[in-house]
């Protein structure tokens, strides 16, 4: 609706509003104007319909706002991966499968190089160790890369996980990375 049309409608509305107010404060003026119950019912129903129209319009409106530029802090290394891990922890399992795989693959690439260097094995042997979970004594770290079910969580593990601050995937990723760093540091 253009602003001009809106202005005209406002003027018409104001006239009706003034008449209405006069009728309210001086009922004798309204005595000669009878309104049938059926008409009132239709006006009421129209009112209800307009409630729906207005609510729908308000809901669908794409609200744009001024966006003053806030100082954008420069990133810290690793922030992006931390955010991804957090998002994975909060998303339902079937909606985060791709992200999980991407994170596992990224950390897996480092893990293979670390294992090759520290254990003197070939890359394929390293990958095998990761898949079997035999590269570390830490069960959480082992489960992060394991493709076979090893040491399944019992009832208490599941209970603890449901109250923990971090998701099971985050915990396993953290433990795996900690183990890799520990392996690298034995080299120093």
């Amino acid at each position, binding site marked *: 609706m253009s602003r001009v049309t809106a202005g005209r409608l406002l003027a018409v509305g104001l006239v009706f509003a003034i008449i209405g107010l006069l009728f309210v404060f001086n009922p004798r003026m309204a005595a000669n104007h009878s309104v049938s119950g059926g008409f009132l019912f239709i006006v009421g129903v129209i*009112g209800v319909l307009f409630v729906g129209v207005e609510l729908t319009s308000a809901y669908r409106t794409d609200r744009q706002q001024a966006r003053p530029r806030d100082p954008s802090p420069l990133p810290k290394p690793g922030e992006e991966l931390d955010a991804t891990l957090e998002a994975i922890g909060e998303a339902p399992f079937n909606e985060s499968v791709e992200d999980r795989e991407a994170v596992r693959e990224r950390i897996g690439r480092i893990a293979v190089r670390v294992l090759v260097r520290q254990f003197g094995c070939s890359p394929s042997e390293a990958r095998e160790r990761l898949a079997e979970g035999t590269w570390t004594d830490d069960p959480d770290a082992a489960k992060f890369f394991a493709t076979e079910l090893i040491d399944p969580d019992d009832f208490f593990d599941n209970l603890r996980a449901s109250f923990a601050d971090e998701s099971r995937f985050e915990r396993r990723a953290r433990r795996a990375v900690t183990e890799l760093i520990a392996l690298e540091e034995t080299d120093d």
Partner: protein
Amino acid sequence: MTDSERPIERETYRWIGMAALAFAGLAVGVLSSTPGPLLVVAVGIGYAAAARSVTPPDVTLDVEHEVSDATPDPGDEVDVELTVRNEGSNTIPDLRVVDGVPDGLPVVDGTPRHGTTLRPGGTTTVEYTVEAGRGRHEFDPLLAIGRDWIGAQEREVAVPTDVTVDCVAPLEAPASLPLRGQTAQQVGTVTTNTGGSGVEFHTVREYRPGDPLKRIDWNRRARSGELATIEFREERAAIVVFVIDTRVEGYVTDSRGVSAVEHAIDAAGAVGRGLMDDGNRVGVASFGPSWTYVPPGLGRDHEVRLRDRLSLGDGFSPTPDRSKFVLGLALRRIQKHVPENAQIVFCSPVVDEVAVETVRRLEAHEHAVTVISPNVIDRGSVGADVERLEREERIRKIRQTYGRVLNWNVEEPLEVAIEGARRRWS
């Protein structure tokens, strides 16, 4: 300045839902035949209708800035006084302004935001204080939003400003980084594989008439009676260009929020001064979307030029240039400008594979490359630990395949890292 850019008109949605509420009152009032709710409805519909028919005020502003010091030193506090004057012919009932403070100037006192009512010709003043950091800081346009009396409609304008704060950081104290072999002809401090005068032992040869007495091997003379002359590794001047990784990736920060580019510039300044003090010629180049280059040179004037360009050059901006970076183009620029016999000191946090590829391709163009890599990665989160492991892998790869790396933990002084590297490289 009265020019206003990109005026945008829009609803504020402050009264959104008012019409629905009014119609609900109407329905209740009519269907229950009670006049009370109808009175409330009149007010509600009045507001809703007015919100749709008013126009936002004209926002024509004159903006003036006064800064206490336009060329401060790093760490100085600079007071900014912003004066906004309504140049329009109508009152702006609700004016909100946000000054365009550059990212490199954090506000330490006051606020650059202000809200007021401004009559025609009226002025309002905002005062705040920023802390100066290295670089050229150009203020962004001031954002102004004017609203009508009931706050239903608003007009947004950006008022350009021409305020610039230039903060030149002095070069750090000289640091002495051993460089790789060199072929330039002037006398300097970088060792070559040629025997001659110098400090480091190279070989012993037969005495030739005219050899200086101080280089005769007197021990051999005492043992066997033969005259022999000691040759030292000849030391010649190096031509060194510091190539600083100013891609977006170079702007990752340490735990204090200082970017790797800042650390790289500090290192280039310190090592560059050390090299120039020893008679070497030093230049700098940015390695990012913007290009700043100072050709190799020597002397006090050149040192001042280096300092100024490292602080104020477009290529060394304190905030990242987010335009597209093309590795091939950046390398071609280096090839075109940097002398063929120049050594390159590539200053980069090495947080991605492009940094490794850059070293490989610079070496392939027969530049002797040394990498100074400020390590800004904090410990403690999974992401940071993964980045650290990946970076160590890249540094290992550069060391094994391409060139020297000075892995500098920015929590410790640069000299400590150089001393450790000197032991490894000797």
